[in-house]
């Protein structure tokens, strides 16, 4: 009785194409927004905000970026972290070099810079697909990080290559506390997630999915392959770029190339595999899962197996669980947690009568 769509008739196509056509979903969504937007910053302690909630939000944004490119447009990429790096360094340099640069404008410019770089590295996708394209994006990953280390200009000639991110100030207010940084991150990520959801449910998203599912047919009905693919690279990199800038400014507080390595690119890929390929909500689930799993295992493995095993075992155990989960999702449920959630809801809708 709690989760039913009976009696909720759609009187117009506008109602029928809502993001949450079922009333319970909509209520649930707004409760979640209230919880994460208001309750969390009031209640959560510093550790939770800094070590869990802020990174989950930022990785969710990067995962949305990769999901647009890989999940929706079908172009596999191993360069997400590099596009994050472009965003982080671009934001740093825009704020550093342009007097009075507003933070939000810098964030947008950082995204646009990443988008341009994304288009450049997306050009090979017009010729190559799948595995070979993944290798080309791998080249982007290494080249970009190499260039950021190689040319000290990017880090303002700092001797260590690590620079402290400037203060985050909007309209005279400085976001200094973890709570303030969390709220800012939350608002940006929520807004951009909404924009992404809107794109994927419109003609733009259908173009991406058409190219993903069958590119010849997509062309035959009038989609332009080049435009569609490059737009996916641009938008995807924009999202990764903004995520990278937030990573530097509201998460770790420094700008450095090191964190944006291949490991991170793979992590983001795992987020969308586990969370759900081709799902905005899945991007959040995947990011939360990948951030929380190690913390969970850190705390629970010693509890179950005792302390005697040592830290080495715990971290190896993590890798085993990770690998196992990824194989599980790839084989059993390629649409990830988001799909499992959907199946659960379908079951709930019929419960307690299975048919």
């Amino acid at each position, binding site marked *: 009785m709690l989760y039913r769509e009976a009696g909720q008739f759609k009187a117009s196509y506008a109602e029928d194409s809502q993001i949450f056509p079922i009333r319970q979903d909509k209520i649930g969504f707004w409760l979640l927004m209230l919880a994460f937007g208001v309750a969390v910053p009031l209640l959560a302690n510093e550790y939770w905000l800094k070590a869990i909630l802020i990174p989950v939000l930022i990785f969710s944004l990067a995962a949305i970026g990769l999901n647009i490119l890989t999940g929706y447009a079908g172009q596999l990429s191993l360069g997400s972290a590099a596009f994050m790096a472009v965003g982080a360094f671009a934001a740093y340099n825009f704020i550093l070099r342009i007097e009075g640069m507003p933070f939000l404008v810098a964030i947008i410019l950082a995204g646009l810079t990443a988008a341009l770089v994304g288009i450049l590295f997306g050009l090979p996708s017009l010729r190559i697909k799948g595995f070979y394209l993944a290798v080309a994006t791998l080249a982007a990953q290494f080249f970009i990080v190499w260039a950021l280390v190689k040319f000290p200009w990017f880090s303002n000639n700092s001797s260590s290559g690590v620079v402290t991110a400037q203060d985050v100030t909007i309209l005279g207010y400085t976001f200094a506390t973890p709570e303030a940084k969390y709220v800012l991150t939350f608002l940006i990520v929520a807004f951009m997630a909404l924009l992404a959801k809107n*794109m994927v449910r419109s003609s733009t998203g*259908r173009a991406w999915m058409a190219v993903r599912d069958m590119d010849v047919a997509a062309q*035959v009905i*009038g*989609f332009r392959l080049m435009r569609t693919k490059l*737009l996916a690279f641009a938008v995807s990199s924009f999202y990764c770029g903004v995520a990278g800038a937030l990573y530097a400014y509201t998460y770790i507080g420094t700008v450095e190339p090191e964190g944006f390595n291949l490991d991170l690119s793979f992590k983001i890929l795992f987020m969308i595999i586990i969370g759900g390929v081709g799902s905005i909500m899945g991007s959040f689930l995947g990011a939360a899962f990948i951030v929380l799993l190690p913390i969970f295992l850190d705390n629970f493995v010693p509890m179950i197996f005792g302390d005697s095993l040592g830290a080495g075992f715990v971290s190896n155990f993590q890798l085993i669980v990770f690998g196992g989960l990824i194989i599980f999702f790839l084989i059993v449920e390629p649409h990830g947690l988001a799909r499992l959630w959907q199946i659960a809801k379908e079951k709930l809708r019929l419960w307690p009568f299975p048919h």
Partner: protein
Amino acid sequence: MARQIGDVIVDLQNISLRFGGVKALTDISFDVREHEVRSIIGPNGAGKSSMLNVINGVYHPQEGQIFFKGALRPKMEPHEAAEQGIARTFQNIALFKGMTVLDNIMTGRNLKMKCNFLQHALYWGAAQKEEIAHRIKVEEVIEFLEIQDIRKTPVGRLPYGLQKRVELARALAAEPHILLLDEPMAGMNVEEKQDMCRFILDVNDHYGTTIVLIEHDMGVVMDISDRVVVLDYGKKIGDGVPEDVKNNPEVIKAYLGTSH
């Protein structure tokens, strides 16, 4: 019938198409007139699908010329053909597997949708208005093809016959001038075939859509075509109204000579 056959709209002259050593089409000329149902028949591997692929720019013939609405048509890409009002269905269903029936059919209207990705991102306003306007058109097609109850179903879950129908819906959503149909009834039972015939004739009749049809079922072809062209091993061996083609000795020989 209200419809009247018009002028030549597509004119193919001396088309030859090769894939390496394989001659898919050899020196083929034929034309399609506005509003007619023009069928292409022939045994397996005769070059029928290749012919459609030449018409909408998927394949580019090595030799020959294509005139479209009276003007010489330079090398054309498939999306340009779509812009000119040519839509098609494929022999092997080419639906977008990861999308619902509704979304698949909505893609058919992409050329008529003018909002850009930024408007889509903001959605409320221009993009939503456009989306709804086109949804109304798509619903007309859905109703016409009698597929209302599957609109929210992912196409991959549908049986073969319905998938073919959805593919036709996607092509019709574009409101094409010319509709290329590659074996739309293959693998269907008698009832499904009758439905499909009815849809094709209705489209032709109501909207005046020119139809180029590839079909193996001779009964159907002779029944609904205005003119028929016959291919064999990439060569044209017959062309004309169904009566003439049926009695053409070369055509009879080609059909008796193969497993058909």
